[in-house]
């Protein structure tokens, strides 16, 4: 079944100081699918993700050319249009990093933090949202009795699920995942993979991964990046996870 296009790029180039990191990328990513991006280290995979939520703007010396459009709230939006504030974009395009990065606060506050940033202060609403997010990543039963414990005291796999819950609490339309299982053991990786498969019903997932077997298991599409160029045309996997 063909999915509508969620993200498209046209002649996208990215520069770090004088060095061109990404070259002339034009592609289309479908809605409610898991798109995997693979390639050697330093080829520009993570940079590509950082373009999609404008996180590159936080790094000095970066510049961009070309066009990136994302369908948000039913409207196509040029994400580099300054009329679209980066803060608003990032609440719609969430991100999970390679290393779990819980904030220096309690489990509850870690999850409610994005709500606080979005000025949502209603206690009931926050409580429900936190519980839902933790249930969604299957962490609720493990932490419900110690929500006030420091989030950094959880195990690696739990921390990554916590970060996933934190990214999900604002119900993003796109979720960017930068090697989300590379620092986890096989059991924790399997749990995350299961989650991602479940999540694609509600959002579009773009995932950087080095693991071919993982890509084959969960990805609907695969792109390969080499030296800043997307060299392979997308490959459809006959994934059992098709929606």
């Amino acid at each position: 079944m063909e999915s509508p296009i969620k993200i498209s790029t046209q002649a996208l180039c990215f520069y770090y100081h004088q060095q061109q990191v990404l070259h002339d990328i034009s592609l289309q990513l479908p809605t409610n699918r898991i798109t995997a991006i693979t390639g050697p280290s330093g080829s520009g995979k993570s940079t590509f993700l950082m373009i999609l939520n404008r996180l590159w703007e936080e790094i000095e010396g970066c510049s961009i050319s070309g066009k990136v459009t994302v369908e948000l709230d039913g409207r196509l939006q040029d994400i580099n249009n300054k009329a679209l504030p980066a803060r608003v974009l990032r609440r719609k395009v969430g991100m999970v990093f390679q290393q779990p990065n819980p904030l220096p606060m309690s489990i509850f506050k870690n999850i409610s933090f994005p709500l606080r940033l979005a000025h949502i202060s209603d206690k009931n609403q926050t409580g429900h949202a936190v519980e839902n997010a933790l249930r969604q990543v299957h962490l609720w039963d493990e932490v419900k009795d110690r929500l006030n414990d420091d989030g950094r005291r959880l195990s690696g796999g739990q921390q990554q699920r916590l970060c996933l819950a934190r990214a999900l609490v604002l119900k993003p339309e796109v979720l960017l995942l930068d090697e989300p299982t590379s620092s986890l053991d096989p059991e924790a990786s399997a749990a995350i993979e299961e989650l991602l498969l479940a999540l694609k019903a509600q959002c579009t997932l773009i995932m950087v991964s080095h693991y071919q077997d993982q890509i084959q298991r969960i990805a609907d599409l695969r792109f390969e990046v080499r030296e800043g160029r997307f060299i392979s045309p997308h490959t459809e996997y006959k994934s059992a996870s098709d929606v």
Partner: protein
Amino acid sequence: MNRPHSLTEYIFLTAAVCSGLLTAAVFIFLLIFSLPLLENGQLTDLLLSSWAPDKGMYGIYPMLMASLTLACLSLSISFPISLGCSFVITALAPARLRRLLLSMVRLMTGIPTVVYSFAALFLLVPLMRNILGQGSGMCILTAAPVLALLIAPTMIIFFVNSFANVPRSATLAVDALGGSEIQKLLYVMIPQAWPGIINGVLLGFGRAMGDTMVSLMLAGNSVSPFNSLTQSARSLTAHIALVMAFDFDSMEFKSIFVCGLFLYIVTALLMLLLRMTTLYFSGKR
């Protein structure tokens, strides 16, 4: 391969032991020279009475209070300003402005205190005299802002370094969640950097307590107990400098060792208290 390693360790160990011994030696030196005034059971007199050497009274109470008041007041002026400056340098200013501001702050740390005091003598003192409408204009309220200016660069550099040590992963997480720079500072950077912030405050307080020139030139040097910030006062350090300038073998002269001893004890106790607080909260985090 082991020998240079051991030698390096030996050198560092020696340096550490020497610095510890030196600190202890200063305390013992001050204690020994303070004994003539302390051994006659005059400790409470020294702490609670006024300075009137012609009546045999060598109390340092007004000076101790002046030092503490000046240090606390200057710190309360300097702390919010330094924190604000370090926010701007860390997160709000564009790269060029950030570099310029940091260079200026570093330059400020090198300006001798006498320059600040001299400038204030001609600019701030007449202004205070006009505002107060009486006296010379030299008072605690005049010295405190200059002292605040003096300690601010040290604190700013400490704060900026503390913010810079906050893990990039934490700040990037907030960016990715759509947090603003202010939210990043309030919710992540300050909670992460606050042991460094406390150390900066500690250092600032130590500098304010230990500075001589600003209080000597601007606070008025009155040895009478003060009951208002607009009154003239003499700090412990200014007292030591003034007594040393005119005397070398009297009881007045010996009393300055007691002043030194109290400066030492107050600073050491404060450091101990803040270190314990930092350790306690670090353990709880």
